């Protein structure tokens, strides 16, 4: 190896090294998800004592959302149905079609989405309309009449 090749090898090698030492941490810094903040997954949404069997109620509660360096508290709702004594389910308030807010139509005993007229049964199953799947459900826990809601799970695609 003559002197010139030695110079060239060193120059290229060092710049590749510096480039990697900067690019790799930068990529990790920008792309790696932040370490999760400890925010309780279970949120108290209200009391289940006033719930009537087979009459859905809209529960309004606050949940904490981690937004970068801030934890913001925001208003959230859930449709809660007591399907039988000792059994409560809770639906995400958004229609699985395009995310509109649906409501309970007590005359027809079904959930009705005003955007594209999807309808859902008391258990959340699609009755009519373009909705691709049943209503999404919260994890539910009832402790001493207090309703605790956890994460939202997507329902199975309708076959």
């Amino acid at each position, binding site marked *: 190896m003559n002197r*010139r090749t030695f*110079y*060239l090898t*060193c*120059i290229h090698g*060092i*710049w590749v*090294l*510096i480039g990697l*030492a*900067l690019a790799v*941490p*930068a990529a*990790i*810094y*920008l792309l*790696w998800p*932040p*370490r999760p*903040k400890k925010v309780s997954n279970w949120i*108290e949404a209200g009391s289940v004592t006033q719930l009537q069997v087979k009459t859905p109620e809209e529960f309004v509660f*606050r949940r*904490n959302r981690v937004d*970068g*360096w*801030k934890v*913001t*508290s925001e208003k959230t709702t859930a449709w809660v149905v007591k399907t039988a004594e000792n059994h409560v389910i809770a639906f995400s308030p958004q229609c699985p079609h395009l995310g509109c807010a649906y409501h309970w139509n007590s005359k027809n005993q079904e959930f009705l989405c005003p955007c594209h007229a999807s309808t859902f049964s008391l258990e959340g199953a699609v009755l009519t309309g373009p909705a691709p799947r049943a209503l999404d459900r919260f994890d539910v826990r009832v402790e001493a009449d207090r309703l605790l809601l956890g994460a939202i799970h997507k329902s199975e695609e309708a076959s």
Partner: protein
Amino acid sequence: MRTLQRRLIDWIEHRTGLETAVKNFLFEEIPASSGWRQVFGSVALFLFLLQAFSGLLLAFNYAPTPGEAYNSVKYIVAELTGGRLIRGLHHWGASMMIVVVVLHMIQVFIYGAYKKPREATWMVGVTLLLLTLAYGLTGYLLPWDNRAYWGTVVATQIASKAPLVGPYLMRLLGSDDGSIGVVTFARFFALHVLLLPPVTTLLIAFHVYLVRKHGVAPAPGETRPSKKFFPEQVFKDTLAIFAAFAAVFVMAVTVKVPLERLADPTDTNYIPRPDWYFLFLFETLKFFEGSLEVFGSVILPGLALVALFLVPFMDRGIAKTLRQRTVAISLVALAAIGWTGLTVTAIVTTPKSTAPAGDFAAAAVQEWQQLSPGELAGIFYFRQEHCSSCHNLGGGVSKAGPDLANSPTRRPPSWLMEFFKNPPRLIPGTPMPPVRLNDIQLTALVAFLMKLTPESAPALENTPTEAGRGAMVFQENECGNCHLANGSGTKVGPTLNGISLRRSREWIEEQVRNPKAHLPETMMSPYNLDPRDMEHLIFYLLSLPEE
């Protein structure tokens, strides 16, 4: 493959002339005497780019307003992978930049490379040195911790003492009365990231253009034929750059950049110190007292700067070899001795904070440390119940509920207790949800709310989470049934104020867990707390000030 690459390069060359430009740059003729001593300029340029890069990455996750700034920096270093490294690179890169820029200047100075026709190159270089220092000054404030806040208070106070222009300078810095707030912060941020970088870039371009125009200064009486910049000098520059980069990288990985408590303008015991490269100026100030102070803070540094600018016009003789430049070398040596002396004195005379078991013993007593355990536990419940989702404490973006520190109507405690249990009964139609706490907990919350005034709210809002929780543990375990803390409780057992001066952390933990181990006769019953409760209780106990 080879021909494809060639054709691509030819295509680009034909349209842009880039290949010729790069070749002209690399195959620049430089004097045969050039070598290791000329590497500093390239290293400084690299470090500037490193600062731009790391600064940009920080800006991607940084909120440029006081308070938020602190939270976002904390987020960068604590929650983002690689964030601590990026901040480290920016922090230590800044220090390295100062070192290298000064070495660059010393090299030019002792070799007399500023002589005709290179006077302009020198003066642009001195301007770049000032810009580098301006980055340091403005960037120091941006983390908005105690160190940033107080360091900048001193700097702006110095600026305010400048003869004639002082008041105007203060107005430009957004501070009429010498205090530092949102306006000053915005000005510093704008200077640091909007004004300084483009100005620096232009001046660096001009500086490099001038170096190229006049060529690298040859040694006096140089007769050997000149050589090319590439590859030998490029190799030396690259190696020097690598050494500087490696040093910065290792520092960034191994040495934690401090992030102190959130800036606290009420902290009367904080000992402000500027960053190390400003310490000599800080120390110089101590020689001048009273009306002479302006001499040390503004006039003397000002004259030194003018002299530095005019160096090429004061030393106009023909170029001499290094050995004959005894005056220049002596001046550098004197400056180095003076600088080192002042800096070391400043470091040595910085009062040490001597903290026993409690980290609080030496610090100023904060507002929250004077609260009763009940009031302090109230802060915990206030946070636990997310009251701040709907209520401000003395200012901020308006929220659904009233500001609790600035409320026009002050309700009595008994009213608040009733209201919290069932809000619509007292205010029909209120959107306020009931607060689900038992009576003892509600009493604590109300006690805290009664302490709120527009003046006390900001300080109380900064109460550490540990202290609030610790006080809650204290309350729920009814420690106050036997102990006095901040004047609340009974005197059956020892008073707990100032315990940080008497007992260690470990002793207290053992005492709570198994009281008979230390004092066989004690009446105190053991408490089996979970580790987090124990930690926070001890944090709270150690924070109790001496009476």
